């Protein structure tokens, strides 16, 4: 492909009839190169180049498995496309798009991991064109959105399809009974980019080779040998691919009539002849190495974007930046920004996967995170010049979806960093980053067993999930139980509530029979019964999940990814089959405040005030509080007059902490068959607002059936009436608070999503900005693991609902991620409007 020089026409931007009533953040100060890249990206489907899925098949006569539906069990909105007993609409349409790959001789005699890596290499080198997107692009690496054959032989194929159908039905059953959702999904880790930049793929190749050579003959013929041979094939793919991209650069030099561009292409070619096989010697090479390594992970997993995160980029590229830009001045800072801008462009093309069918950025939920700033090994702050340059690029590009920065703050974060992030917040509606809080986060990681002298080097994946870098896959977002289901189970003695319109049987026995709640004589008895139900829920979640985990482990190895996570080579094990150095499987509790507030309301009205019986409450819930005046009165009381989590109310916070401890503790009892330890977290992505909420009966906190659950660790929308200090305090207490000696406790090692909305007037002048800064500093002490800030006037959102044409750029924080407000559903829009907008 020739490099495009056509100036972009911003086709997605309609001319508004009247201007927006409220000012929306816009990109600014972009270099001409960055502006071109950004505008070109937003042309969407009108672009001459895109990164649409490319589908590749082995053409096997016994049948093909290309699309891994298991990646999508955690997105219940897709169930309709997955099908019931057939391969389903989506899978079939993917297969129709497939191109057959000419298989090398003896392909089917190879082991499964070797087949996978051989097929992957063949596709990346010989089927997907190596393209430089534009004269403005400084980073090679174009198309990576693949759907690759899983390369199953006949026996494996038949067995896989059988297990897959069983897993599918189990996942659907779990979901449709209101338990939430689960599935072994891809992405969601930080690969060891650092080692590739510092030592190159040749280092991991040699490590794999050495390990292989040390095996006994028996081992070489066994699973270790198979995996290690596949790893060696995989480790050479980046070198071979880079070589082909270098050739493309040299071809383009001949086409170019600009001296400047010819020089750039020459340098790009030289870069590609070095990295990622050799260590990066310049900042530019470092960025090039990072991008190729990263895009190949997404290509191998055939799962673009979600949660495949960069880790502490400002740290592992900080020295090269310092050398090239500050000390030796080999490139100027603006050019370094342009290199980074090219990288930003490529990250966003993950969303092109379904661009032609109009589903670009279907959920805005991809999270290629980049962790910035934070603590170093000796408790020092490690913010550097690169940190600030990256933040500057994000600010100038904003609003943009990828990559998503997470800024780590701690007690000694520099004032300059606070100033920069406050300025960025002031300019945008949703802060263009998540704040992650080191002390609280690290306390959780230490709890799960990360050594104290390593924990400072953690990073974030997906939205805000804390993991270690390069040696940890913590399966964040794989298990998403709806904690509020426990309320239904305890009220109906382990059964589904009768009469609720759900695609499952009413009265179906699911949990243990804890008896008729009428018979409980006191709160303690009731609470003990609730505890049994939540224990059952976690056990059921684990058992159900483990089946999909095991199927994936058996049939879907990812040898390329495995060489990028510490200990997989040493153990000769695929990351999907056995544990890397740190291996956890996260259970993300959904609907926490809904559950806590429901328990509080029962305690308050049934046991403390003895004003209502369980019979009355259950009857009102069965009727969704509708049809009788007494139900409406009861609902109003439950919703308004019982204590609520999120107000720093002692009674409510105490119960919140107790509930948190109980369910979190339960997860530690279990492991996956692949030897990953279960652990708790609270991400809750879209589930509180989507299908999982839809299948949830009316709850005793006064919530109507089918309406939104509470989001992650946030209070129930509108129930927090005491302001942002009270909310932050409640969140910190629920996570464990602090020890008497001041050290932090955090029972959720994966972290917890906390979103808070402020009215723009909080940042109206310098004095108030200082106060807001102090609020964030106090949040470091008292709050949770991560905070997302919306700075929005609800009137603006209402205006945006009515005049979406004026607000195409309005980016808001939904939960752990940003989304364009006008592109999300009305229900979710309404929920965001309903959030309490705090004034100061």
């Amino acid at each position: 492909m020739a490099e495009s020089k056509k100036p972009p026409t911003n086709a997605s931007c309609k001319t508004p009839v009247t201007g927006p009533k409220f000012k929306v953040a816009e990109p600014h100060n972009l270099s001409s190169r960055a502006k071109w890249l950004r505008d070109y990206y937003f042309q969407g489907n009108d672009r001459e180049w895109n990164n649409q899925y490319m589908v590749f098949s082995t053409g096997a006569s016994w049948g093909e498995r290309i699309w891994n539906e298991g990646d999508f069990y955690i997105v219940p909105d897709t169930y309709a496309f997955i099908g019931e007993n057939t391969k389903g609409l989506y899978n079939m349409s993917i297969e129709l798009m497939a191109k057959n790959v000419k298989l090398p001789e003896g392909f089917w005699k190879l082991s499964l991991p070797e087949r996978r890596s051989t097929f992957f290499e063949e596709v990346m080198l010989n089927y997907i064109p190596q393209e430089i997107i534009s004269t403005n692009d400084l980073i090679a690496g174009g198309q990576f959105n693949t759907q690759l054959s899983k390369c199953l032989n006949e026996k494996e194929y038949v067995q896989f399809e059988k297990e897959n159908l069983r897993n599918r039905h189990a996942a659907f059953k779990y979901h449709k009974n209101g338990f939430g959702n689960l599935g072994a999904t891809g992405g969601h880790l930080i690969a060891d980019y650092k080692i590739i930049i510092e030592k190159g793929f040749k280092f991991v190749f040699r490590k794999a080779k050495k390990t292989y050579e040390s095996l006994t003959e028996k081992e070489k013929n066994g699973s270790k040998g198979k995996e290690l041979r596949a790893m060696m094939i995989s480790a050479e793919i980046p070198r071979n691919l880079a070589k082909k991209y270098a050739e493309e650069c040299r071809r383009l030099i001949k086409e170019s009539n600009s001296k400047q561009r010819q020089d750039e292409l020459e340098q790009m070619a030289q870069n590609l002849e070095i990295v990622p096989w050799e260590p990066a010697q310049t900042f530019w090479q470092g960025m090039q190495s990072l991008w190729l390594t990263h895009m190949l992970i997404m290509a191998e997993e055939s799962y673009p974007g979600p949660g495949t995160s960069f880790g502490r980029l400002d740290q592992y590229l900080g020295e090269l930046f310092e050398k090239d830009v500050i000390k030796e001045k080999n490139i100027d800072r603006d050019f370094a920004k342009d290199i980074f801008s090219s990288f930003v462009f490529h990250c966003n093309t993950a969303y092109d996967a379904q661009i032609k069918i109009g589903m670009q950025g279907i959920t805005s939920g991809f999270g290629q995170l980049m962790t910035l700033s934070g603590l170093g090994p000796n408790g020092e702050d490690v913010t550097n010049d690169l940190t600030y340059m990256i933040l500057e690029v994000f600010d100038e590009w904003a609003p943009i979806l990828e990559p998503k920065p997470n800024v780590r703050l701690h007690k000694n974060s520099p004032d300059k960093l606070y100033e920069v992030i406050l300025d960025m917040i002031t300019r945008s509606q949703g802060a263009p980053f998540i704040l992650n809080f080191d002390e609280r986060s690290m306390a959780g990681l230490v709890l799960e067993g990360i050594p104290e002298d390593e924990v400072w080097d953690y990073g974030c994946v997906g939205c805000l999930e804390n993991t270690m870098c390069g040696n940890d896959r913590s399966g964040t977002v794989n298990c998403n139980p709806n904690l509020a289901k426990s309320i239904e189970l305890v009220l109906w003695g382990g059964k589904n509530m009768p009469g609720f319109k759900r695609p499952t049987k009413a009265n179906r026995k699911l949990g243990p029979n804890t008896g008729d709640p009428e018979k409980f004589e006191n709160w303690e008895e009731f609470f003990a019964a609730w505890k049994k139900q939540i224990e059952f829920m976690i056990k059921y979640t684990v058992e159900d999940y483990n089946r999909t985990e095991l199927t994936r482990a058996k049939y879907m190895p990812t040898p390329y990814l495995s060489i990028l996570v510490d200990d997989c080579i040493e153990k000769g094990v695929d990351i999907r089959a056995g544990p890397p150095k740190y291996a956890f499987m996260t259970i993300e509790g959904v609907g926490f405040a809904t559950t806590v507030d429901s328990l509080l309301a029962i305690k308050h009205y049934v046991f403390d005030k003895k004003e209502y019986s369980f019979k009355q409450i259950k009857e009102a819930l069965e009727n969704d509080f509708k049809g009788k005046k007494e139900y409406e009165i009861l609902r109003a009381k439950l919703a308004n007059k019982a204590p609520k989590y999120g107000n720093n109310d002692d009674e409510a916070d105490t119960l919140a902490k107790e509930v948190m401890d109980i369910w979190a503790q339960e997860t530690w009892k279990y492991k996956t068959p692949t030897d990953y330890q279960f652990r708790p977290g609270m991400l809750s992505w879209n589930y509180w607002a989507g299908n999982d909420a839809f299948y949830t009966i009316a709850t005793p906190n006064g919530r109507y059936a089918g309406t939104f659950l509470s989001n992650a660790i946030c209070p129930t929308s509108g129930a927090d009436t005491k302001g942002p200090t009270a909310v932050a305090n409640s969140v910190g207490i629920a996570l464990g608070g602090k020890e008497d000696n001041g050290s932090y406790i955090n029972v959720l090692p994966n972290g917890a999503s906390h979103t808070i909305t402020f009215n723009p007037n909080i940042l109206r002048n310098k004095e108030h900005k200082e106060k807001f800064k102090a609020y964030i500093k106090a949040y470091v002490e008292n709050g949770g693991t991560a905070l997302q800030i919306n700075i929005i006037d609800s009137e603006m959102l209402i205006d945006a609902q009515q005049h979406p044409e004026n607000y195409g750029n309005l980016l808001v924080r939904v939960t752990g991620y940003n989304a364009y407000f006008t592109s999300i559903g009305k229900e979710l829009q309404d929920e965001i409007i309903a959030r309490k907008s705090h004034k100061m």
Partner: protein
Amino acid sequence: MNTLSTTSIDEKTSLKGLVLEIQKLSTEDGPGIRTSIFLKGCPLKCDWCHNPESIPTKQGIQWFEIKCIGCKTCVEICPDNALKFDDKGLQIDREKCSICGKCVEECPSTALQIFGLKWSVADLLHEVEKDRVYYEKSGGGVTVSGGEPTMQTDFVVEFLKQCKEKGLMTAFDTCGYTSLKNLKRILPFVDLFLYDLKEIDSAKHNVFTGVPNETILQNCIWLAQKLREDGKKLWIRTPIIPQYTATEENVRGIAKFIVNELKNKIERWDLLAFNNLATDKYQRMDIQWSLQDIPLLKKEDIESLYDVAIEEGAKNVQWSGLTQSESKDNQQ
């Protein structure tokens, strides 16, 4: 815990304060992030008052239409027969209402609320201590405001004393219309006084607020000197109300007072532009507010008053508040 209704108040328990509101993350009543305690009762009756519910010393009942689900439970249970529902909503016969609080207790949706809850010193202290870390990070603390907090001096002295024992920075927001004795009792436990000087002309002050200003000015002079001696701080606050205090001669007069009588030894002088956000509060109290439709100040008006203050030699002057250009109502 706060007392949710009047019925459970134990009148014999000593030293309870009648608290209108506890506002956390308060950013308008002194430096840093604060918790502001608004106490009930005020000897003044300013026409522009933004917290009319704070003026009476006794509790009061208000109905929030937006929260009401129309169940009429309140009408059924009112022992005074003081409530009725008509097409305009809930009508409270304030002559008949004995403020027993039963309706507030029974109202399922918190549409009926009582203003003024009794708090013990210990409970209030526990509540404000929850935000200690926010005060520490911001140089903030606790502000006691009102109403006029000297109306509950016994309670205030004890509360402030315990705040100081806990190492909290304290501010005291007063209209100054009180006895010197009260100020003397409070002074040792206050780090910063927020002192209102509303109108320099005593006759006008009497018309606007119901009291003349001599006591206020004398107290202010005394306080300013004492605070200087003790190394404590004084902020003067002047509400700038269109058609009332928003005149050049008033600002000039107060400026002269600050420069000459207070020796300009104040840390800050705030000119607070009027806003009309209290309209619905008056409606809920069944009071016709004479300032309801008064236009907001123009930005240039408040700026020129600011210039007058500077011209007279006042220092550390700041202005804030709503002006016409910022108000959406006035844009339409």
